[in-house]
């Protein structure tokens, strides 16, 4: 009897301690804590990502799951001039917009870093283009770019610089530059404010030392500010390139890819083919074709950063 009671007590104790041990087990706890985030990301991100690649190998249409057709969609795209035009447009859009955003953003960050009255308010105001939803500011640009009633045409005409109205969104190259301008306008605050945050971490004693050594403003920027800012520049520009490359909203509101596909980006073309045209497989192939470009952008900045750190002799981290 006593033995049985004792063993019962022991087994309860064992069970309890197993439970407590499990409760304090890091791996077990970590699993539970990670569960909600993991569930979202697996169900709505990882699974669709895989499905998208799979769809690009099928002839799926809206309302009909497709059958495997191998590389047919890609062969089809290879001979498709509109697809190559969209690749060209996307690269042009990304390269021009990112370079200008970086240039003006860095310049604006340096200006905002100066001593001046109402600095806090000015900084807050600069960010407004970034907070207002892109679609809503794109609509303002749509009106500014109107063929007949554009305020820009009006001003230039009254200054005597042009004779007729500019057809901002109706002409191939005009439309390209107009959409690129709108993208730059929206992206500058992000670049400027993030670089400003980076600038503020640079210790003022470095500037003082450089000034005492007789460095001029350009030399200080080139040899003190810029090298210290490089890591943050790499991160900001990776994001900037990524967002510009996959932009959809601005183009969709301003031109929907027109005139004659001159402003189609890969994202807008895949929307048009897949959702409006119903060719899910082909659209998926276009968006899958974006992945190598994105990977290249990420790797480029990653290795850029690594090289910097290696140069500075920081092997850890």
């Amino acid at each position, binding site marked *: 009897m006593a033995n049985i009671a004792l063993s019962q007590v022991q087994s309860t104790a064992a069970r309890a301690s197993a439970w407590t041990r499990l409760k304090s087990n*890091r791996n077990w706890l970590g699993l539970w804590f*990670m569960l*909600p985030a993991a569930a979202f990301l697996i169900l709505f991100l990882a699974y669709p990502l895989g499905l998208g690649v799979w769809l690009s190998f099928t002839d799926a249409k809206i309302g009909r799951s497709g059958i495997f057709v191998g590389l047919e969609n890609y062969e089809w795209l290879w001979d498709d001039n509109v697809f190559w035009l969209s690749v060209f447009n996307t690269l042009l859009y990304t390269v021009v917009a990112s370079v200008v955003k970086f240039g003006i953003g860095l310049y604006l960050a340096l200006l905002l870093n100066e001593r001046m009255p109402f600095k806090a308010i000015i900084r807050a105001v600069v960010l407004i283009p970034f907070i207002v939803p892109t679609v809503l500011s794109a*609509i303002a640009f749509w009106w500014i770019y109107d063929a007949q009633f554009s305020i820009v045409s009006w001003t230039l005409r009254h200054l005597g610089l042009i004779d007729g109205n500019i057809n901002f969104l109706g002409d191939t190259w005009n439309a390209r530059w107009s959409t690129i301008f709108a993208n730059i306008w929206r992206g500058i605050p992000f670049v400027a404010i993030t670089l400003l945050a980076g600038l503020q971490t640079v210790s003022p004693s470095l500037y003082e030392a450089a000034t005492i050594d007789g460095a001029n403003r350009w030399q200080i920027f080139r040899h003190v500010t810029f090298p210290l800012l490089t890591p943050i520049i790499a991160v900001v520009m990776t994001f900037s390139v990524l967002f510009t490359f996959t932009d959809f909203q601005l183009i969709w509101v301003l031109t929907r890819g027109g005139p004659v596909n001159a402003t189609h980006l890969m994202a807008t073309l895949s929307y048009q083919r897949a959702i409006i045209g119903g060719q899910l497989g082909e659209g998926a192939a276009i968006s899958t074709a974006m992945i190598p470009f994105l990977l290249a952008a990420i790797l480029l900045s990653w290795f850029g950063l690594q090289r910097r750190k290696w140069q500075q002799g920081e092997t850890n981290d």
Partner: protein
Amino acid sequence: MTETFASKLVRPGRALKAEALADHSEGMAYLQTLPRRLVTLYLPLGLILIVLLFPFYWMALTAIKPDDQLLDMDRVSPFWTWTPTFKHIYKLLFETQYPLWLWNTMFIAVAATFLSIVASVLAAYAIVRIRFKGAPYAGILIFLAYLVPPSILFIPLSSVVFQYGLFDTPFALILTYPTILIPFSTWLLMGYFKTIPFELEECALIDGASRWQILLKIVLPLAVPGLISAFIFCFTLCWNEFIYALTFLSSTPNKTVPVAIVNEFVDGDIYRWGSLMAGALVGSLPLVILYAFFVEHYVAAMTGAVKE
């Protein structure tokens, strides 16, 4: 920054000290003369500010201009109006489904943000503090998820949403937006949690608190600024999202503001510019007001996501 500004008005001495502490980047600026600063600083800054703000001025002006002045640029200067009208805004709020669209956007944004923040708090805490096996990899995977853009996912997601029976319901967006928001806010909160001293948690553990109690009673109260940052930024991202809303919603009453404005105002009405601009203006206001109260948090969130 705003705090410094306010205290400057009240107590100059303290403000000067605060200024000296907060503002350590002017370098040798005091050596420059005013005319030089006018040309190198104020002029370019002014020009950039005008370009950045002009579209909003134009949006607001168009929204309150009478229709005849919009299309007649010869007799009246287009840059100003002496006869503002609230007709467009009135029409927008009382004769269209705009309030419904605003409500949809708000509801979806709040729900998706709430779900994302709960999931992110748990994930960030697990990665930073529980440090289970594989935590660093989980951190990297979450960061990689941030780099997957919606423009690649919307096609397969549309068929997933259809399979799950969510098509044309707010849940299609409430459940898909977290894939954009969770990576961002987890990354942000990981940074915040790292700054909370570990000793506080150790003491609580010794006192017999469970992980759950530690999280709720010690870590979260200390991470409130981070939570606000994450909330503001997630909310803004939701409000801004377009491609999922365009793809997963089809009937007019279910739409969100950006999609509805683009699709419902564009055709039919000849004098559509006034209502379009009014729609864009009213749709931007909630975010701008929220932003005005939480600028600091917003900026912290934006730069926090970029910092390593």
